[in-house]
């Protein structure tokens, strides 16, 4: 069995060359969307971007959550967590309710708004390449190893080592390890993550668990509600009957 794969992106090592951006476009056969890749944003034709924040460059892409919100909310199960760790989308199932886009804590899924049969688009963690034993296109293209591809265990170890060995260089946090229950894209940065446009302050528990807390209550609500309503039906019916009988007997006495 394949070990779960993932990416480690180190902001301190990124020079903002855009190789990952271009490799991703090539790999997924996506059209050009912006002449200056630094000014581009995620869209149905762009699965990853490099954004400039002063001297720092930050990559944005699907975080491939361990417990993905998109997979949890999709009414038809069009999203699946693959055994490679990638979160994959099946356009044939999709009905286009766009709840995945609403629910994603990282605001990643994009939509083909201009099409009459639109699909949701996002990074696939180069599923086909990984299945064939290759790296993701972006990791392969990266000249500085700012984007590393590997087994999750190894990546976590590398990230922890870097934080420990260079405490002055890094902001002491591995983004993506615990955010929203954790995922398969880890990020290291010299500055707090909200300064690089990442969604900070995400809870550590997985997002689907927030919904499950409510969904769990459905069986008891149905059971208690059903019994309560049936009970009230008999009670109020009996009450009315008694009231009617009393009325009748009262009248009888008068006559």
């Amino acid at each position, binding site marked *: 069995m394949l070990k779960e794969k993932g990416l480690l992106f180190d902001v301190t090592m990124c020079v903002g060359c855009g190789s990952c951006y271009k490799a991703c476009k090539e790999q997924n056969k996506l059209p050009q969307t912006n002449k200056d890749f630094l000014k581009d944003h995620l869209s149905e034709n762009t699965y990853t971007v490099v954004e400039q924040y002063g001297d720092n460059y930050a990559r944005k892409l699907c975080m491939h959550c361990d417990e993905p*919100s998109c997979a949890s909310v*999709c*009414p038809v199960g069009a999203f699946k967590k693959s055994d490679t760790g990638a979160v994959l989308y099946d356009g044939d*199932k999709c*009905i286009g*309710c766009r709840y995945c886009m609403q629910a994603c*804590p990282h*605001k990643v899924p994009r939509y083909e708004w201009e099409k009459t049969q639109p699909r949701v688009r996002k990074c696939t963690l180069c599923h086909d390449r990984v299945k064939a034993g290759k790296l993701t296109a972006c990791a392969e293209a990266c000249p500085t190893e700012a984007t590393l591809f590997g087994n999750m265990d190894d990546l976590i170890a590398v990230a922890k080592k870097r934080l420990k060995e260079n405490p002055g260089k890094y902001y002491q946090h591995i983004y993506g390890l615990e955010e929203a229950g954790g995922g398969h894209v880890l990020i290291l940065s010299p500055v707090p993550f909200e300064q690089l446009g990442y969604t900070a302050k995400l809870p550590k528990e997985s997002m689907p668990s*927030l919904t499950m807390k409510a969904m769990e209550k*459905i069986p008891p609500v149905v059971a208690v509600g059903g019994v309560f309503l049936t009970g009230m039906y008999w009670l109020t019916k009996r009450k009315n009957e008694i009231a009617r009988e009393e009325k009748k007997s009262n009248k009888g006495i008068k006559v």
Partner: protein
Amino acid sequence: MKLSEILKPTFWKVVSVIIVTVGLYSTYFRFTRGLGASTNLYDTVPWGLWIGFDFLGVGLAAAGFTIAATVHIFHMHKFEPIVRPAILTAFIGYSLVATLLIVDLGRPENFWHPLVMWNIHSVMFEITWCIICYTTVLVLEFAPVVLEKFNLKAPIKLLKKFSIPVVIAGVLFSTLHQSSFGSLYLIVPGRLHPLWYSPLLPVHFYISCIGVGLSMIIFESYLIARAFNRGLNMNILSGAAFAVLIDLIIGFLLKVFDFISTGKLALLTVPSKETYLFYLEILIGTFIPIFLLSQKKVREDRKWLYFSAIFVIAGFMLNRLNVCTTGLERSAGYTYFPSFDEVSITLMLVVLAMFAFRLVVKFFPVFEEEPILHSKQNNVLETKQIILSE
């Protein structure tokens, strides 16, 4: 009604025809050009006016289950005359919601997928199923009215046997999906503004739908009185208004509890667009109607009762649209405003829903049990008239 009378133009007829014509064109445009061309939706604002309107429609149709339960489960037969209008409202409301949902789906041709492709963890999946089941319940509850018209007694008898389990199922399905509309947003704590986000969101949604469903019945009674020259049964409406009052007070207390227990009170002093809209929502939908309806004089006065119902409905509209648009605007980083096509398709469906209501009322005995004498149809008058016997 004669043809000449139907064709006689009145203000609202002309307006309706214009709205439907424009709406049909927008519908054509939406299905031939796609969502991008016809809506102002955006990647970070994937849900707009249409989904917001579905929220409104489902809440406003809530009287279908509350009134049915009041009469058939709790045996409060005073409300009997409004059971049929309430069920019809719910049925038409849900049909409107379903149609609008299909217009909103990116792949409307796949609308049947949830029936065969299951994901039981999805709130959306649960809502879809509850709405399908509840609409079936509504059909069963309204079927006797249609059967009565064609004088088919055997199926009515059969339906009567199952009527109580059907009503109970209807209440349960409604409870689930009305609250689940709130559960939809439980998964977005980072995106929905904390003034509205709460783990209690499903409970808030459930409580508010009961009050607004009854207010809608009150509001609708005036529309019916206006359209069909019928009387108003103030006795029933005042009773419903009292239930609205209780519901609003419970909803308000829960909100206070929610704000205190999650420490959100400080948010109320932050000057922002969200705070102002939140205040407006509470003022219009909670404070003013509670103040009005707590007075017996208001509940029994037809003018003030009408305005109270409008306040409750307006406050509810603000609440639902605040949750699904205002509260998400800041995190989306994009200010959404519905496009012309979005508005015109929505208006068209509202007009068609009102027209459908009118049509059903014309051909089926929806108001048959109303006890007001002077505007009754002839045959009913005869059996209920006051006698001058010896």
